[in-house]
């Protein structure tokens, strides 16, 4: 079975891929230098000129870009194409101060659609498939990304977006959805409802393309069994393009990176030094064919391993393992990026101590966030009513800072761990 969308790239000889990367990198660096003053300044500070970058072998000379740069340059500071050539914006789910806006030209959307189309075809998708996209649509990249990919393959596409589970299942039955695209936790929820309603035999699903959150091998097996599908992983981030930066093939042992558009590196998160293939480190991406927002050497903070082994699917594209953690302390809760420092800011502004604990769990397929704080005389009162009013006020402040709600639990003073050295601020109980 030939499960390729663009075999000339997906199965290209390594030297041919490198040639494409070399050319595109040189062009992109030139364009960034000429069109993005913010980036020119970064290169100048390193004493770099575009001519210093002749091929991917020179990639390590370029400065890193981080989320801080994106924030500093918000909104237009890293735009590399004229605004009138841009046709769409997506944004991270990030919260105040951390929001990132990414721009797309029509070409950018087209290549993104190709990336997602490769993922759909790798999961067995053809023109005859009915692709059920239950990722959120809107500023979030998930829905529109897979939607474009499915169009590109020629599949009948159901732009379901997220939520309204009964309707999701009704459409799945009535229209015979064959490929489900959503977060793995939502897939699990759907599976449960399908089971409850005894509809499994009326569901025609054969594959699922799941991403946007971490999920384990155990979860894969559970989803495959419950939905009687093959479950494929997909990876991406808004800063780079969205879903489809990399995708899984039938081997299901890591995700092939679309190397004609994105160059991946693994670096030591502390020193920034590039690490050899097969070594665990921080994943860094350079966009080499995007026009509007071609970030170079963007530090994802995802801890990962890259390996270019011969894959039984025939693809030559390098594979990345499932990210196994983060090099910063960011949490992803219900799809929203949450930094403990944001919570700390709210607590301190509220006059509470910096001794707090964040407990993240997953209950009924939904992430829960609990913030344990130590009671202090200012917050205390002799009536429950008043304490609860202050508790609610604090919850409101947390919600407006984070964009998601958190439960506040009051603890006795000095009851939260004050360990020697580094305090344990986050307890993540989610089983993934």
């Amino acid at each position, binding site marked *: 079975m030939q499960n390729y969308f663009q075999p000339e790239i997906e199965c290209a000889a390594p030297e041919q891929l490198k040639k494409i990367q070399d050319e595109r990198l040189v062009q992109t660096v030139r364009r960034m230098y000429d069109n993005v003053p913010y980036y020119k300044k970064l290169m100048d500070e390193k004493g770099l000129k575009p001519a210093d970058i002749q091929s991917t072998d020179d990639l390590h000379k370029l400065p890193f870009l981080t989320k801080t740069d994106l924030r500093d340059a918000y909104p237009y500071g890293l735009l590399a194409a004229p605004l009138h050539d841009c046709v769409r914006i997506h944004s991270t789910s990030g919260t105040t101060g951390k929001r990132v806006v990414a721009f797309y030209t029509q070409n950018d959307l087209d290549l993104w659609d190709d990336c997602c189309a490769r993922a759909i075809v790798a999961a067995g998708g053809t023109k005859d498939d009915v692709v059920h996209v239950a990722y959120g649509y809107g500023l979030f990249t998930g829905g529109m990304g897979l939607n474009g990919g499915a169009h590109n393959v020629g599949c009948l596409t159901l732009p379901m977006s997220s939520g309204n589970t009964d309707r999701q299942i009704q459409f799945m039955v009535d229209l015979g959805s064959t490929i489900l695209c959503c977060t793995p936790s939502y897939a699990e929820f759907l599976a449960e409802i399908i089971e409850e309603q005894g509809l499994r035999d009326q569901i025609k699903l054969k594959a699922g393309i799941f991403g946007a959150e971490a999920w384990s091998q155990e979860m894969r097996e559970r989803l495959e069994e419950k939905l009687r599908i093959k479950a494929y992983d997909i990876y991406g981030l808004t800063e780079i393009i969205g879903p489809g930066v990399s995708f899984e093939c039938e081997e299901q042992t890591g995700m092939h990176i679309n190397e004609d558009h994105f160059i991946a590196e693994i670096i030591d998160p502390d020193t920034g030094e590039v690490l050899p293939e097969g070594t665990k480190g921080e994943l860094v991406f350079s966009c080499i064919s995007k026009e509007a927002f071609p970030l170079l050497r963007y530090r994802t903070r995802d801890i990962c391993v890259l390996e270019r082994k011969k894959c039984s699917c025939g693809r030559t594209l390098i594979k990345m393992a499932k990210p196994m953690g983060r090099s910063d302390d960011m949490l992803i809760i219900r799809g929203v990026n949450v930094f403990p420092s944001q919570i700390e800011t709210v607590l301190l502004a509220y006059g509470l101590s910096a001794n707090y604990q964040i407990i993240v769990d997953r209950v009924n397929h939904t992430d829960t966030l609990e913030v344990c704080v130590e*009671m*202090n005389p200012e917050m*205390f*009162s*002799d*009536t429950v009513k008043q304490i609860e009013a202050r508790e609610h006020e604090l919850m409101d402040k947390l919600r407006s800072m984070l964009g998601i709600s958190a439960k506040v639990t009051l603890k*006795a*003073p000095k009851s939260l761990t004050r360990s020697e050295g580094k305090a344990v601020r986050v307890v993540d109980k989610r089983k993934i």
Partner: protein
Amino acid sequence: MTIDQISVFVENKPGKLVDVVETLGQNGIDLRAMSIADTSDFGILRLIVDDTSKALAVLREADCVTSVNPVLAVSVEDAPGSLAKVLRALSDAAISVEYVYAFITHEPGRAFVILRVEDNEKAAEILTQNGVKPASGSALQ
């Protein structure tokens, strides 16, 4: 007219209440009256003690969060309906009661009622008009 009541924050977990009470006992503090208001996460332990300032010092030493509030203590006849009369008088005067708890004293035939209201002065006035006299702290010693 009022007496001082100490409130202590207590986590709603086994062993937390006894810790507080033990601390007081070990330091020779005698409890005159107490009540607990609780939620699923925490409780508020309210205490009338023989030596408020010493109790506060001891509790702070033990890292407890405390507050002190003036509350009304009234002596009523230990008979059916006497508390109702007190509360009715306050209610008729539009004084709402935050909480109330009662206990029996050494004085035969009398009970003490602790009342937490928003306006102590006004409440005391109403009670006096109705023939109920708020007790001073010494009455509880």
